[in-house]
């Protein structure tokens, strides 16, 4: 197994799928020679040509819409939206078209479309380039929503997404692109709807997504020094969500904390709380479920403010300790 970056893993997944299936193609702004804003597709245009690694005009609605149309007639487009904040410009095509077509048409059409997009803060790019908008898409039936945290996962999940016959919104994280991890050379996929216990523990369950998985793991490591045993669960996909694994873990630990980068109000963390409260785990709760989440503000530019707007390792450490006192 090789150590490669998350960004490389994304690229490899796409390269291998482009090789495997001639119906797969890439479309997005500046994904060709430039390689995309984060260099993820760099070099791919040389390998696959400008037809299959297709630079587009700056027209997010039409980019996704064209993806929907191409998908309906047999292609498997992977569309890149340069920053996930710009999904708002393509919301109609994602939410009212891609998500609904299969159902609205009584199952007679399918839309095997992947919308890849980087989310998250931490690059100083401010309010319109730093959001974590997964909750918006998780609320819309018909979409699948993916949030990989590691190179291994991102590659396997992206392959699953490309092979899935449904529209998938695939949230990568800008700060994770340079993160390294082991990835096998062989073809593999990571299934949707299967959470992973990234660290097992007994005192509290911490459910975390995307980059927060790493912060939660680091917090768990620190807390281990104080003899606090934290179980960290990464759902990998929000839709479908593996509630079972979470419920089991909560039954075991009796405590649940959810960590997300997205703004707290109306974020996906709330959904997890509601699911667990409605489950059999409710009776096993020794303390209220808490959310450690982004503040309810746009992401500010100034560095210290930006960092304070979203959960950091020490916030998680502190919150876990407080939770254990309850």
């Amino acid at each position, binding site marked *: 197994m090789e150590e490669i970056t998350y960004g490389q893993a994304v690229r490899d997944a796409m390269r291998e799928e482009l090789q495997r299936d001639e119906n797969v193609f890439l479309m997005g702004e500046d994904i060709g020679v430039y390689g995309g804003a984060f260099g993820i597709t760099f070099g791919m245009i040389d390998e696959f040509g400008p037809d299959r690694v297709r630079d587009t005009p700056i027209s997010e609605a039409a980019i996704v819409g064209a993806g929907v149309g191409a998908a309906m007639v047999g292609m498997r487009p992977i569309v890149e939206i340069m920053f996930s904040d710009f999904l708002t410009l393509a919301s109609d095509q994602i939410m009212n078209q891609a998500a609904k077509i299969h159902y609205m*048409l*009584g199952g007679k*059409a399918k839309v095997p479309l992947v919308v890849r997009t980087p989310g998250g803060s931490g690059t100083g790019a401010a309010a319109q380039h730093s959001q974590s908008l997964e909750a918006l898409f998780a609320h819309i039936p018909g979409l699948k929503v993916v949030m990989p945290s590691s190179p291994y996962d991102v590659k396997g999940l992206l392959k699953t997404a490309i092979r899935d016959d449904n529209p998938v919104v695939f949230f990568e994280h800008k700060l994770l692109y340079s993160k390294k991890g082991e990835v096998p050379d062989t073809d593999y996929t990571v299934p949707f709807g299967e959470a992973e216990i990234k660290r097992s523990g007994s005192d509290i369950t911490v459910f975390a997504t995307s980059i927060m998985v790493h912060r939660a793991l680091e917090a768990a490591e620190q807390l281990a020094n104080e003899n606090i045993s934290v179980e960290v669960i990464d759902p990998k996909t929000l839709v479908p969500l593996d509630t079972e694994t979470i419920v089991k873990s909560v039954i075991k630990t009796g405590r649940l904390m959810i960590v997300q980068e997205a703004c707290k109000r109306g974020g996906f963390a709330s959904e997890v709380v509601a699911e667990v409260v409605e489950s059999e785990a409710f009776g096993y709760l020794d303390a209220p479920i808490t959310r450690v989440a982004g503040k309810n503000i746009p992401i500010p530019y100034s560095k210290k403010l930006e960092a304070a707007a979203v959960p950091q390792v020490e916030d998680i450490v502190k919150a876990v300790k407080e939770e254990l006192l309850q």
Partner: protein
Amino acid sequence: MKLSKKLKLRMLEQMLLTRYFEEKVDELFAKGLIHGTTHLSIGEEAMAAGPVNALKADDFMAITHRGHGSCIAKGADINIMMAELMGKETGYCKGKGGSIHVANLEEGNLGANGIVGGGIPIATGAALAQKMQNTGKIVLCFFGDGASNEGTFHESLNMASIWQLPIVYVCVNNMYGMSTCIDDVCPTNNISDRASAYQMEGITIDGNDVLEMFEVTNNAVIKARKGQGPTLIEGLTYRWKGHSKSDANLYRTREEIEEWKKKCPIKRFQTYLIEQKIMSEEEIKKMEESSLETIERAVEFAEQSPYPSLDALEEDLYAY
């Protein structure tokens, strides 16, 4: 260009079927047998039959909320359409879509759209796929005058032009988007004038002349199939009925409506067919009767069809 008699008869029949279908829908709606919302294209029948017949059976089209005529022209089964409008399990969408979502990919119908302008990028993407896969197929994309003010119109036509996609855009200019006269919301004389912004050919023609609609579309289809890129065709026509169920028609005059009724595309085509001795009055009468019967049978079929069972509620959310 010389059109075969067979094609002309087919177009007349489709126009009649559309007219009768929608008159029936109007009636059933009033009776409460069709619910929700439905948009009638009565008066605009040439805008469907003309362009759609320029397609081959396996070409694609994307249509609008006012799309019954295009469905029929593309070969939709009237029974199944009617069943869909009545919300029956046997409908094109198993009763889940209704009038504004009728679609049938097997017949190349990518579907109506409840979002004005929503289908334009989808059609464009379908055309991109044809080009990439070298299928030789083309896409016909319908939209209204009002839709030409949506951002998707601009983004899509631009894309189609830079990539020289095999697509023909057909703007059904019936002078109004709901109550809004296109003259008040579009500063150019014609919507086709906008084609130049995309270095695209733009043509405005009489949308009540089914033969002209056919011919002009056909030329554009040939061009698209040859890889010579997209065309924007605007047909001028008129919607006789209100925009949808509840429309007091306060934004236009009775005279205007009456004036346009005199320009009925079906009457006009029938007169032509008789004058050219392609059909006799007798034959036309027969076709009208058989079309009416087809509609009656469709109503029967639809009425006798079951409503979807509640078990179907959560089915069809995801494809497997």
